[in-house]
Structure formats: C-alpha cells, structure tokens
C-alpha cells in the first residue's frame, strides 16, 4: 500500500510498546458484534496505473466543453483559467494545510484570505466580505437568514427572476421555520429582505434604485445576487445593496460538473456581527509587525454553538485562493477587459442569431447571456444538437433557450450554432407547411 508507511515490523514493535497483545485489543471498546472479522465486499487495493485508467474511462464518457461549441451558462460559466492559477493552488503549502488556526505558521493562507476579502469588497462596493461560502445558492440562503436576524422579521421577498435552484435552496433552508414565507410580491412591514439577481436568470441586468427605495421605506434589507461575477467588470457595483452574495466560479474555478464552486458574501459594516462564516483581520505580532488572523469568531459555531450565526465551518478556501490568484493576474485592466470581451462575444452571438428566421431575442439588455425564442421546443433542440456535438444552452419553458458566450466562444462556434438553429427552424417551418 503506497500510502501507508508502517511496515509489519513497525506495527509489531508498536503493539508491543503499547502493551497490548494484538491490534484487535485496541478495538476492545467496540462491541464484538460490530467488529468486522472479514473484509467488506469491495474491490481490493489497486496501483496508480489501474486507478488512473478506470477513472479516465469514466471521464471519457463525458463530453467536455473544450473542443466543441458550448453555450451553456445558467449560473456556471465556461471561462479560461490561466496556467499559473492551477500551478499555484497545487503548492503543497496551500493545498495540504487547513483552516489557519495557528497564525504564526499560516500567514500565507491568511494574507490570501485578506486579499480575497478586499477584492470581493471592492468588486461589490460593500464594506466587508467573508472568507467564502459553499456556492452562490447557499450564500443567498445564508443572506436571507442573516436578514431575518438583523430585522427580526420573517418574510423573504424575491424580485424578478432569481436562479430557480437558488430559490429551491432558500426554501430548503427555511422549511422548518413555519413563520417564514418566500413571496414574489413587493416588500411590506413584515419583509426581512428583498432578493434580486443581476443580471437576472435570463441575463437581464437590473436597475436597483427603485428596490433600494422600497427597502428603505419598509425597513427590509436589499440582498443583491450576482452569479456571473465577471459582470462586475462592466456593470456598476451594486452599492444600493445591504448584502451582496453570489457565485465567483467564473474566475479561477473549473465548472467541474457543478462543484466545488465559490460562494461569496459581502455586506455593509453595520451588519458585521451578524455575518456567517470566517473572517480574517489585520493585527500585529509581539514584535509589532503587521500580521493577519482569523477574527470575530464569537459569531461562529465553535464558540457560540447553538447561538452561532451559521453552522458553516469548512468553506471553499482553496478556490477562494484560485479566485484571488486569477483576479491578481487580471488586475484592474484585465478584469474590465475580460468583462467587455465577454459582452462583445455575446453581442456577436446575438447579432448572428438575430439573422436566423423565426428566432426572436426578447432581452432588452444583457451582459454575456440572453434568451433566444425558438419556434420549437428548446429542450428538444438541446438534445438534438448535443447529438451533433453542440452544447446549445439551457432549455427554459417552451421555445426559450438561454445561451451564454464567454471569451472561450469563437466566431466559428457561433456560426455552427447559428447554422444548426437555422436548420431546426427551417425543419419546423416545413412541418408547419405540411
């Protein structure tokens, strides 16, 4: 067993040193009936070659985004990740350390978290950000729970098109609190928050001033959800918000079939003590040198137990680092440029698709994703095109197809999709005539 360093002699010596007769004696506190005498019915150990082969065979059954026209988004985006990012996150000192409980020997992770918090705060226009959440959906649910704590009120109001899975997760998180309702109406005196996604699930950027006014009038918090974080390089920061949460997978994190991704959580500083999750703060060491440390942990489960602001412990540390590295590479210039490039690719896609007869584009505005209205069932089209090696987008109800373009989208990819959709539409028209 290549991962197990003890030799049979070591084991015998150690059993003797401990002063027991056998290994089994160390399991004496486990009732005899629960101690397995035989091996569990599972395959035996295998070498690196065999394991790699078996897993590569499973991987080969999937159709990856690379090397095919790919237009799927809906909360998870196909972006380029610079080689530096993956190299750095595989540095042993980042990959194989844990939550920086001992700051004297964890300044590397702590500085990176501090930089992460700064970047998220600057991107969102908020005062503070935490060290990450599981993903955009759970971050949104945690924001709703925080709004309940802050306002002492029950109901969660959703404005417009929030990602349907985010809504489902909110509903799971509150299902045992019978006083809490999820509503689509305008906020009233019993509203804890208004949640709005921008760009919304259909790709439409949202104006926030009116919602801000409603929230101020009713005393509800405004929670803004951003699940394509790259949009913040082109769209204005949601400074109207009280809490900004969302998904940062687009920067530095592979799609990886939906996880691990990277949730973020930012808010105004007056809500600091109600925030969930870990926070890293600046201080000094004994010699007065600037240092960083996990702080304000009296909000957290390991101190407050049942009174904690959240039960979250382990978060998405390594991918917060990946994000920070990718954002550092992009910087002020690259991040804005990448955002602009995404928008221009989406414009190019929209212009080409607009030329296809029978297709309409209902979005008034968009960042890198928008709805295409087809004359046929979108889910049929998605299946049909997948058989031809094209991942066309996300099928909404009826003929509505949600398509995204990123810096990875080429002119050729766009042409392939447009031609395929032309055929689909023509086929539908012929059927109509017949």
């Amino acid at each position, binding site marked *: 067993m290549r991962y197990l*360093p*003890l030799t049979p002699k070591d084991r015998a010596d150690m*059993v003797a040193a401990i002063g027991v007769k056998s290994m089994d004696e*160390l399991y004496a506190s486990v*009732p005899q009936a629960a101690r*397995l005498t035989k*091996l569990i019915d*599972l*395959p*035996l150990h*295998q070498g690196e070659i065999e*394991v*790699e082969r078996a897993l590569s065979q*499973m*991987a080969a059954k*999937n159709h990856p985004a690379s090397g095919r026209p790919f237009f799927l988004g809906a909360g998870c985006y196909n972006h380029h990740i610079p080689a*530096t990012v993956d190299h*750095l996150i*595989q540095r042993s000192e*980042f*990959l*194989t*350390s*844990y939550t*920086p*409980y*001992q700051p004297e*020997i964890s*300044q590397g992770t702590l*500085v990176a978290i501090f930089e992460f*918090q*700064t970047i998220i705060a600057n991107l969102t226009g908020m*005062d503070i950000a935490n060290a990450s959440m*599981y*993903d955009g959906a759970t971050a949104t649910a945690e924001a709703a729970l925080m709004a309940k704590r802050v306002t002492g009120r029950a109901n969660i109001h959703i404005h417009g098109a929030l990602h349907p899975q985010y809504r489902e997760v909110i509903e*799971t998180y509150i299902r*045992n609190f019978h006083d809490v309702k999820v509503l689509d109406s305008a906020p009233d005196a019993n509203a804890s928050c208004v949640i709005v996604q921008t760009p919304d699930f259909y790709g439409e950027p949202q104006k926030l001033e009116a919602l801000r006014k409603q929230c101020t009038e009713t005393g509800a918090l405004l929670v803004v959800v951003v699940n394509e974080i790259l949009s913040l390089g*082109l769209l*204005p920061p949601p400074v109207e918000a009280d809490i900004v949460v969302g998904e940062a997978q687009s920067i530095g994190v592979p799609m*990886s079939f*939906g*996880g*691990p*991704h990277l949730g973020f959580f930012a808010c105004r500083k007056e809500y600091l003590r109600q925030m969930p999750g870990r*926070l890293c703060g600046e*201080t000094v*060491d*004994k010699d007065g040198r600037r*240092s960083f440390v996990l702080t*304000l942990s009296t909000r957290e489960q390991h101190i407050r137990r049942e009174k*904690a602001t959240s039960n979250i412990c*382990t978060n998405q*540390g390594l991918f917060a680092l990946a994000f920070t590295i990718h954002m*550092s590479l992009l910087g*002020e210039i690259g991040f804005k440029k*990448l*955002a602009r490039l995404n928008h*221009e690719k989406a*414009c190019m896609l929209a212009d080409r698709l607009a030329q296809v007869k029978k297709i309409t584009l209902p979005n008034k505005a968009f960042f890198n994703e928008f709805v295409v209205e087809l004359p046929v069932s979108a889910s049929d089209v998605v299946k049909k095109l*997948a058989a031809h090696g094209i991942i066309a987008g996300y099928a909404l109800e009826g003929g509505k197809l949600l398509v995204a373009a990123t810096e990875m989208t080429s002119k050729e990819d766009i042409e392939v999709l447009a031609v395929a959709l032309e055929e689909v539409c023509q086929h539908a028209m012929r059927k109509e005539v017949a």
Partner: protein
Amino acid sequence: MSLFDRDRGLNVEENLLFEKGTNGACGVDLPEPQNSKLRTGFPAREKVGLPEVSEPQVMRHFVRLSKLNYAIDTGLYPLGSCTMKHNPRLNEKVARHPGFAQIHPLQPEGTIQGALEVIYTVQQWLSKLSGLPHVTLNPAAGAHGEFAGIMVIHKAHEARGKVRKTVLIPDSAHGTNPATAAACGYETKTIPSTKEGTVDVDAFKNMLNDDVAALMLTNPNTCGLFEPRAKEIADVLHKAGAYFYCDGANFNALVGRVRPVDFGVDVMHFNLHKTFSTPHGGGGPGCGPIAVTEELAPYLPVPKIVKHGDHYHLVTEDKNSIGRLKGFNGQFGMAVRALAYMMSHGADGLRQVAEDAVLNANYILSQLREQYHVPFPGSCMHECLLTDKLQKDKGVTTGDIAKTLIEYGIHPMTVYFPLVVQGAMLIEPTETETKASLDHFIAVMKMIAEKTTAGESEELHNNPVSTPRKRLDEVRAARNPILKWASQG
C-alpha cells in the same frame, strides 16, 4: 524596521499585492475589445480597485506567501478530529481530466454519463463502508451534511405525523452539531459526559421523551473514545421513536473495520476531506455525503441518481425529498478525488488505514502517559487526549505547549477542545505518519514536559520565535476589525 533588517536568507517579507502599485501592468493577454456600443443598459464601470501586476509578480507573490504556511506535505499535522493525512496527487490528476473538470452541471444527461457513474460509484462505496443502504453526495461539507441529515430526520417525523422539538447532543460534541440543530429549527439539550469521557447513558435516558427527534453523537467521540454503549443508546432511541445521527468526523478509526449500521446508526455524514484524503486546501472545499437507512431514503435531498440498466438518470424533483441543499451536483470534484483514494486502497487498504490510524494514536498515548495527564483510562481510537494538568502548576498551559511545538517545527494538535476537558490537547497523527515521525513528536513533547519540570517556562511562554510571525495580538484584531486593505493615501 529598516529595509535591510527585514529579510534574512530564505525568510523574506512579502507585502500585499495591493501595495505593489498600479503601474499599468497586466498578467493576462486578451484581445483588445472593439469598444462597440454597450447593450447592458448601463455605462461601463470605471473603477474596480484591483492591483496591476504582471504574471511573474503574481507568481512570486503567491510562492512567497506559500512559504509562510505549514502543511501536511511539510510535516506532522496532528490536528485532532481533522484527519490531516497525506493527500495523494493521483487524486488531483484525475480530477483535472477535461472529462471531469470541463463539464457543466446542466449538460444533457447523455453527455455526462461518466460523471453520474462517479457519483453513483462513490455512493456505493460509502454505503458498503457504513452498512447504510442509501447515500447522497450533495452536502458541501461536514456541517452541511449534518444539516441534510437533521432535515431528513425532521421530514421523517413530519411524515409520521408529529414534529418533535428537541435534539440531544453530548457536551463533547463539535460546535457544528448544536449550530446545525438550531439551524434546522430544533432546541438542543446537552447530555453530560461521564468521568470516563463517554456519554452518560443514565442522564441520556432521563432526558429522552417523545419530544426528542434525534441524538447527534460523534463516534468515536471527540475524546478519542468509542462510545461502548452506542448500540444500547440506539435501541433506546429507536424505542422512543427518535433517530440516531452519527457525526462521522472520526470515521477514520472505523473505515473498513467497523460499520456504523452495526451500532444502530440511522444517518451519518462522512467528511471526504478527512477520511478520504481530499485536500483541506487551507479551509476547504470539503464534501459531506450522508448515508441513511431504507426508512429515511425517500427524504434525501435532490438531485438523486438512479440507474436503469446501463444508464444513469439525475432526478431533480421528488415530492418526498427535503429539497435542494446546494446549487447543481454537490462538490463533484471532491467525489472524483475520493473515488481515486478508495480504489487505491480497496477494502483491504481501508481496513489497514483504520488500524494504522488507531495504532499510531495509541503509540503516542502510551509514550506520553508519564509526562502528561491522561484524563480517561484505557486505550484510545485514532486520536488521543492529553491535558496540561501536570504542567499548569508550573505556569505552562496547553497554549504554551502548542506554541512551543510550532517553535520546534511541528504543527500543534487541536487545543482546548473538547470543552469537557480543561486544557485539552487532542492529537490525531493519522495513518500516513512513519514511526520515526511519531517518535520525533514524542521526543519534543517529552522535552517540553522536562523544561516545564525544570522551571524553564520563560522560553515556553515566548514561543514561537523562529516563525515568520511571533504570537499575534488577537484581541486587537477583534476590537478594531480591519478586514480589507485600504490605501494609506
């Protein structure tokens, strides 16, 4: 500090990236935008507030930062209940296969069969290892698994017609247990521990009534002991119509050796980042699958995976389910890594993992019994618990011992936890340490005890001194929170 006093040898100070100036550099090359008319409905954002640096600057910054971290790959990391074992790089390699890393969660089912096969296969392994028939990989971490498990239990009571209000939790439990029960809408009641470090079963029985929904029990518990009456506890719970939730944070002691189903567990979570070696990553990502009995299976979160013939289906709607826990399909990338780990070990290797983990912890315990107070009699499981009782009279605390370990090149154990023992030191070496590495740790621990006895405590209070930073002013960080960088200008 003058410029020339800062850096010595390989110890080089590193500023924040934000302090490297905004000189117009950029670490990526992208095509120039055409700056055509925007269709976003908004003017372009002007300022974001990010550094401007090139790729070599970014590389050097993060490599320098990395050198300020201790890690498993650099030494023993005996953090109790965290299972800091070796992280095989094969796991990393396979997870980066484009067929895994570059697939989207909403692709048509026909294009993701291999991914569903991975999830299904990991579920089967965890089911066999726990003895519980149904598994979901949706929860994102251990605490999220607890949340899923307690929600499932809540739903089961709901289905039986009476929602109960209380969850019982021993005083030795991880903080996530009471935090989770509260997040699921329960009141928590704390069961005391006996002087043997296990659940006070009589107290437990007295607290049990028809309003108790579940017991959350970590087994082996956080004192490093197997709860010897776990099966009896389970039987009593079941008779009272309540469920047994097992916190599987310490499953490394049992994997392949003891199945939780055999001591009466109804629901348990696994930490793939503990028992199954997915990297801790400086604080995640984790992955917290749960396994449940046949009775509880209908309530598992969506999506669920079903297999028809050779084809895998993703079921996203199910009226019995507690619903969706997280966007998309759990922490899939962690499942790939864990599967590589499980296949590498096999049934035989995993059993050896548990035995070696238990052996290593007991070896440390046996060698430090004279120098340190051992609060509970007998052997331990995969982690051993010591306290500072013998040192405290000389003014040396668990905190001093931990910081002195750092000075001598070893990451400390978990300190001041579990809360039921004063000055606790919870030591979990894991199975991937050599005997020589354990002997070195033991020697350093003995030396600390000797220095304490000899009255050389001044040094211990000051440690560490050779690290990138000395002891930090944590009170200052909390009193005057500075949580982001701001320019001094």
